[in-house]
């Protein structure tokens, strides 16, 4: 289970982006090789939202991961599209390291891992 599921709900005003909106946007950022989103892979460790500023803590499947250089831009592109988001900061961490146990496959993607 990813930490993202244990994160406290974000309290905010009606024009403030919600954690659910950010998660939905992150669900559209896919691993090109696996065809799974960063959320389903359990790569997202935490989401903090304060006055439209979104801080995302996430990992990659391994240090030296091929998309290390470009992933933060993909995440920023996706989350900036959420109404009310003013800035996005992406922090990559390998503590704790990712393991396959973090994968949380959606029914839609059970057949995509080919």
């Amino acid at each position, binding site marked *: 289970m990813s930490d993202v599921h244990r994160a406290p709900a974000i309290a905010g005003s009606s024009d403030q982006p919600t954690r659910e909106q950010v998660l939905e946007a992150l669900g559209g950022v896919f691993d090109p090789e*696996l*065809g799974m989103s960063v959320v389903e892979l359990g790569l997202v460790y935490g989401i903090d939202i304060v006055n439209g500023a979104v801080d995302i803590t996430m990992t990659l499947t*391994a240090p030296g991961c091929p998309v290390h*250089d*470009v992933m933060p*831009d993909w995440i920023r592109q996706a989350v900036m599209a959420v109404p009310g988001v003013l800035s996005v900061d992406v922090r990559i961490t390998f503590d704790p390291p990712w393991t396959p146990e973090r994968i949380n496959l959606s029914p839609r993607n059970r057949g*995509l891992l080919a």
Partner: protein
Amino acid sequence: MSGPGPSAGSAPSPTLPLSYLVTAVAAFVLACAAVPALAPELAGHYYHPRLAALAHTVTLGWITLSILGASYQLIPIVLARPIWSQRLARWQFWILAVGIAGMVSHFYIGRWPGLLMAAVMVGAGVAMHVVNVAMTLSSVERWRLTARFIAMAFTGLGLTVLFGLLLAADRLWKFLPGGFFPTLHAHFHLALLGFVAPAVMGVAARVYPMFLLAPEPSGWPERVQFWGLALGVPGVVTGLLGVPALVVPGAIAVAAASAAHLTWVSRMARDRKRPALDWGLRFVLTGSAFLIAAGTVGLGLAFDLLSGPRAALAYAVLALGGWVSLTIVGMMLKIIPFLVWYRIYSPQVGRVPVPTLARLGWPAAEALAYALLTGGVAAVAAALAVGDARLIGAAGVILAAGALCFAAAVARVLYHMAPSGRRPAAAAGARTA
């Protein structure tokens, strides 16, 4: 995130490994096409100039270029370190390509002075690679299994090439002590067990878990793999060169390393979170299964239960064609699409829908390649064991057809690099941002 590619701040240009890998595929097609053409020679003794040309097309043109090219892509991932010098790697490619072409052609026509000159070029290219890897490894802080295997592999490569240079010089000046065939066998085993085996096992240690979505295994298989090769390879090579009593214990140690590797791969396959296997992973796992057959025949040769050129040729095909080549084909079907995707589609992520890696390939060609190559390798090994030229020719045709299907699958992926070959995302899950 799961595929191989440039690492943080160290991204080698995708064209660097691609130049090695595409040349290696061309060598593979050439080698497979040569099997039916050389069937009469293959039905005889393996020491024949044209068979030496075929062997070096496989070992240098296909296997070595694949490993060197893949290492420039995978070392930044498995070691989390940038390659020391990309410029050196580019110069090295051209020196190696010319040197290998020269060696193969001079073997084929049996001209030894030209062979020695070409071998010197190959030696220079390999030396450049060893320097590049050594400088990269020098910044590694924690020597995990993969780093140790890579160091072992490129030490083995350097020694193999040095050995080969001595053999080429010996054709002219006859200075090496001992019999020719034991020396030749030692050269072959140094290449297979001292260079290729640790390269495959080392990369597998980090890359298979990433592709299979499996936990990285640990424990005794890790230690037995490493120490089995570290102790077994010197035993086998020294034993072949002049201390026969070391051959059997060396072979047992190598067999233990192989058994540990197979145990470890089967654990990953069993515990994987990736339920469906693509053709690349099927090639890799099938290649591992060929290690059982190759190891069995190899032990038979070491224990003198088997002997002669028929068993030796079948052993070489099971090891180089089965285990090593099928593993490389599988890895290439993973690496090349990623390199092309990273170069062509990665900059477009978030701006336009882009295809996933699975949509870059040609699954029908990959499936046909799988059936023909796995069947072809088994058929060629069996035909060589029998020693019938017609059977070798027929099996070689199957193998060559498989190689062409594989090349077609690779060409389809590379076609995305041409503007007319690019395609938009078209399926659910194909959007990347």
